[in-house]
């Protein structure tokens, strides 16, 4: 169960705004967290508390394939992302690195709402508005990757992909 406060952003947040290209060339993960979302919201770092939830509209994470985007969000302490839908590379990247992401079409979560998320069943309870949302179901192979905590532990365990 994840409990946290929602930080609401809009549609089409691209990966250049999540982490600008000039900061991506590094293996120092904490330096990515220092600059996350800075062009989009210069106050992000002050506002954000570890465990908070990032909420967006359509097409979150479009643009560059940089995995540094979900890595930076995870390193900053985001517990979960909720969007109406994601750009495909970002979505795969987030699952692969073990950052919880939920696709919740039609949600109306507002900035500051208190949320309670049941990751296992994909249920988002909006405590501030008193409503409940169900996320879309992941393909089986993605659920297996999520269950192992990401693609690295998945492949360390199985050595190869498997689809029943």
């Amino acid at each position, binding site marked *: 169960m994840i409990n946290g406060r929602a930080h609401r952003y809009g549609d*089409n947040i*691209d990966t250049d705004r999540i982490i600008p290209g000039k900061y991506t060339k590094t293996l120092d993960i904490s330096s990515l967290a220092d600059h996350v979302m800075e062009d989009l919201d210069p106050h992000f770092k002050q506002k954000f508390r570890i465990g908070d939830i990032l909420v967006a509209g359509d097409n979150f994470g479009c*643009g*560059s*394939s940089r995995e540094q985007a979900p890595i930076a969000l995870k390193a900053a302490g985001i517990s979960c992302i909720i969007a109406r839908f994601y750009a495909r590379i970002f979505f*795969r990247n987030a699952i*692969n690195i073990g950052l919880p992401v939920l696709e919740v079409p039609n949600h109306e979560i507002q900035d500051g709402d208190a949320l309670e998320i049941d990751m296992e069943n994909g249920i988002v309870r909006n405590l501030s508005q008193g409503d409940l949302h169900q996320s879309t179901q992941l393909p089986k192979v993605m659920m297996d990757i999520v269950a192992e905590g990401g693609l*690295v532990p998945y492949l360390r365990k199985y050595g190869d*992909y498997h689809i029943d």
Partner: protein
Amino acid sequence: MGKGMTISEKILTAHTGRETRAGDLCIVPVDGSMATDTTAPLAIKAFGEMGGVRLKDPSRFHLVIDHAAPAPNERIANLHSLMRRFANDQGCALHDIGSGICHQVMVDHRKVQPGDVFMGADSHTPTYGALGAFACGVGSTDLAAVMLTGKIWLKAPATIRILCHGKLPTHSSGKDLALEAVKALTISGATYQAVEYHGTAVEGLSLSQRMTLCNLVAEMGAKTGIVSPKGLELPYPFEATYADQDAVYARTIEIDASSLRPRIAVPDSPDNVDDIERYQGTRITYAFIGSCTNARHDDLRVAADILRGKHIAKGVRLVIAPASRQVLIDALADGTMQTLIEAGATLINSGCGPCVGSHEGVPGDEEVVVSTANRNFKGRMGNPNASIYLGSPATVAASALHGYLTNPAL
């Protein structure tokens, strides 16, 4: 079967060995893969963490140092060293600084062929759809899995057909057509789907222009983009994969190319596309001809034809980054580069250059840039206080000449 297949369905079926239709989940053997200095270090790290010791097939894996090359600082220099060491240890190809932009290098060196499944750790990998390949962009960890297993898991995409009628007018190019298509589909309109280009307007296009079309499907959120190989000319024999007449498409968009005037993508999104006429006269200070979208030999020649015997406007700088070493050699051999430099252009290294804001020409605050690249997001070129317009090489050259956004057809 009863119904035909799209190009993507045919390529995936040929690779999985069983009928693969839109929506099917499949594990696909990958013919080639690639990572750059932005994505390779993380991929190499993930490969090791997965327990990877040797690459599944070193002859199918390519490293390219292009995004910040030559290294602008010691941190990036060390990442480049890591890539060189890895290539040396594993026996895979390393395309070092000056080789060019990853996508151009893969095509120049024939590392991707028609009908291939190719995974690149860069979002513009669909560019190879110009050759009739099924090519997708992935992140570093997905790529590490390809390095380890030689495979990727995918959901076979539904396909959007873009039918381009007529023939492009003289001053409009593949870039104008591509921008019009991005506008029609919007920045998220092809998410999880493939895009297939068909029609008389694309049949006459060169490989270079087809690459521009496929390059910009990334700006629609597409999984891949393929130009129907009808009319495609390559310097080697190849087997083309065509869509069936009765292939099933998710939707069809039609564009009348014959009336298409030069387009411009207005800040801050590549789908914010308009007729350049409406912006004619907007002052610019910085013009960039480069990137995997439009920095090939034909692009540079278009610019040289506009600038021959003239000089760019006072107060404007024109930066040119050829797409690859081969492009640079060709542009030197026929005098194209000389013409551009005499007109006042600044030549920089073959590579990504200022496209991604890592180095080599970051714009200042309040500057207005006109560029042949593919993205004009806020901060894309390294400064969120600059604005970026996207257009064809002809538009950028004509604008550099006058110092303001200029319709090259006038």
